[in-house]
């Protein structure tokens, strides 16, 4: 433990005395100060706030990630290549501590800079602004729905040779015959997530949600679509127990409908029940469509923006810890230029991978090279998931509550478990890298 703290202190001194920490703080704060001149959103107060929050904190986090990862990979690789690391290695200090202390120092420096930025943002946008807890509808799990689709697909396969089967269905089945089960499952899961539900004119749709104790402060966030992806009129009334709210807008907009106490609606249930029904009565002349898993959320009042920022800061710091640990790991086994390059490429592909996978589903890739590239992107996305699957800044900008459970998990996994594992791998890599250094 003593060795860990000595290395931690050494790295902190390096960051401070080489002015890396000060420059980083200056760059991040300068970015936050500049954002209001760069982004104005859609012109509404909420729109401006949304865009500025997203850009300012997101930008500051990116600056921290890129500079600390480069600094960590460079300095560690340089120490190893210049033999300075060997001086620490010949002392009775565990190799694990040599890597872990450095990872911790880089993460602490980054967390400090992010805390400064967070304080500034809270001061600017108001600490007391309420945020909402996001509640998903209670639905069949995506995997179960995908399994049902797969079972249905298997039941259709014998019809491939049946001349009575429509040509179109035969074509679809034939195109899927040689597709591996894993790819089919991914396709069906994507389809389950994107499954649309239609609500005809005058019809009423119902979805179930976990029962909510707090009647006041509830709202529905919804995004309707229409046939042919046109902007059509939306009119209707939501009812959730004795709460209701009416909507009048256009499709494709994200609508936030506050639910207020009114006449007892038809969807009301006894409070003892675990779920409650949300109803939407469509009074517009068009058929409305929505993807319940993506487009429909219930919002319940949670705590303040300041508390939400604390959780977002914890998540961002945890994500940064993983990035720094990865950079140090690369520095422990690669030359400085290769380490920095690899780290940069991994960060970029990691950040872009989820969008690439979303935009290029398996069935669209017919070329072998594209399929291989997609498989590599999937692997990168899987490796980077602990960092890039969290979206605390987006949640802050949307006034959504950064989930406490998710925050705890991020701290445990991203800030401790993954860096510890990478420190162990670095310890192994240090021994091997020295063996091959001649």
């Amino acid at each position: 433990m003593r060795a860990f703290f000595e290395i931690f202190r050494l790295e902190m001194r390096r960051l401070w005395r080489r002015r890396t920490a000060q420059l980083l703080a200056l760059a991040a704060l300068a970015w936050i100060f500049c954002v209001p001149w760069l982004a104005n959103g859609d012109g509404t107060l909420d729109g401006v706030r949304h865009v500025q929050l997203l850009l300012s904190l997101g930008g500051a986090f990116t600056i921290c990630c890129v500079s600390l990862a480069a600094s960590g990979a460079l300095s560690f690789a340089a120490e190893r290549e210049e033999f300075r690391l060997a001086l620490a290695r010949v002392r009775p200090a565990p190799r694990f501590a040599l890597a872990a202390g450095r990872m911790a120092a880089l993460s602490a420096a980054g967390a400090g800079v992010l805390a400064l930025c967070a304080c500034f943002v809270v001061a600017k946008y108001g600490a007391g602004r309420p945020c909402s807890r996001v509640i998903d509808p209670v639905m069949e799990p995506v995997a179960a729905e995908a399994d049902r689709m797969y079972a249905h697909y298997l039941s259709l396969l014998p019809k491939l040779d049946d001349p009575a089967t429509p040509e179109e269905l035969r074509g679809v089945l034939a195109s899927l015959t040689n597709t591996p089960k894993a790819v089919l499952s991914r396709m069906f899961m994507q389809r389950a997530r994107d499954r649309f539900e239609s609500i005809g004119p005058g019809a009423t749709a119902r979805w179930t949600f976990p029962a909510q104790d707090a009647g006041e402060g509830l709202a529905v966030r919804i995004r309707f679509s229409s046939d042919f992806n046109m902007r059509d009129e939306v009119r209707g009334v939501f009812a959730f127990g004795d709460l209701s709210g009416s909507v009048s807008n256009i499709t494709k907009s994200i609508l936030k409908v506050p639910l207020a106490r009114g006449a007892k609606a038809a969807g009301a249930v006894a409070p003892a029940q675990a779920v409650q029904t949300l109803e939407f009565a469509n009074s517009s002349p068009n058929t409305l469509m929505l993807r319940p898993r993506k487009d429909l959320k219930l919002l319940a009042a949670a705590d303040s923006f300041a508390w939400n920022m604390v959780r977002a800061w914890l998540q961002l710091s945890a994500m940064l810890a993983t990035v720094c640990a990865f950079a140090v790991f690369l520095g422990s086994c690669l030359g400085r230029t290769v380490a920095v390059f690899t780290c940069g490429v991994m960060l970029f592909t990691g950040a872009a991978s989820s969008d690439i996978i979303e935009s290029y589903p398996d069935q669209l890739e017919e070329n072998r090279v594209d399929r291989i590239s997609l498989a590599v992107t999937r692997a990168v996305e899987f490796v980077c998931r602990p960092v890039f699957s969290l979206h605390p800044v987006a949640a802050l900008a949307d006034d959504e509550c950064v989930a406490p459970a998710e925050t705890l998990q991020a701290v445990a996994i991203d800030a401790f478990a993954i860096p510890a594992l990478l420190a162990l791998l670095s310890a192994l890599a240090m021994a091997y890298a020295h063996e091959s250094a001649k």
Partner: protein
Amino acid sequence: MAVVELQGVSKTFRDFWLRPTVKALDGLDLSIESGEIFGLLGPNGSGKSTTIKLILGLLSPDAGKVALFSRPPGSAAARKRLGYLPELSYLHSFMTARETLLYYAGLCGLDRATARERTRQLLEMTRLSDVADRQVGGFSKGMARRVALASSLIGKPELLVLDEPTSGLDPVSTDEVKTLVKELAKSGMTILMTSHLLADAQDVCTRFMILNNGRSVAQGAVADLDGSLQDCFLAAVAERRAFSVASFLKA
């Protein structure tokens, strides 16, 4: 008791594809007893650095056995009793001399009070007390060398490995280092040193080994030498010199 023991040690360096590139050591036997000042000598590329790295536990042998205090050299127990001064000082330029010594004291596991006291003593011994709180990046090569020497002694080692200890020092400092090495040996410390300055090695060492092409070509007690260590060295590596001249003439 042998402090350092190498038996039939061979080491070949390999490239990324594990193809052999350099055979650095070839069946080397070496034993250093407690309290000795042992000189490991040899021309460039003879295997001195590889031998030292094996003793420090930074490399592992392909064949043979390396033991430090009868333990594997990489073990924490062996490293606790080891001090090392590399050929170049490799100091962190942003740290002060005092911080450098306290840092290495921490890595050696000394408690804070002992670390502070030991740091004060070593700064006095190396005449660095006046500049103890200046960053070592601004030090002259000689001063940096003294900081590195002090940091190698911070854990009160029983075996001190000195790689070119007088490199970069002026004649007065060189003489001081030589006197210090002798005094440390008198206090019971075992010292293994390499040097290209054969006169210095002859002044200080009690025993020596000359390496050439990864093999021991001469060894013994300095006191038993008929002539100077330099004559012995040149005779031992004569084959290499003759070969070089012959190939030059042939070319």
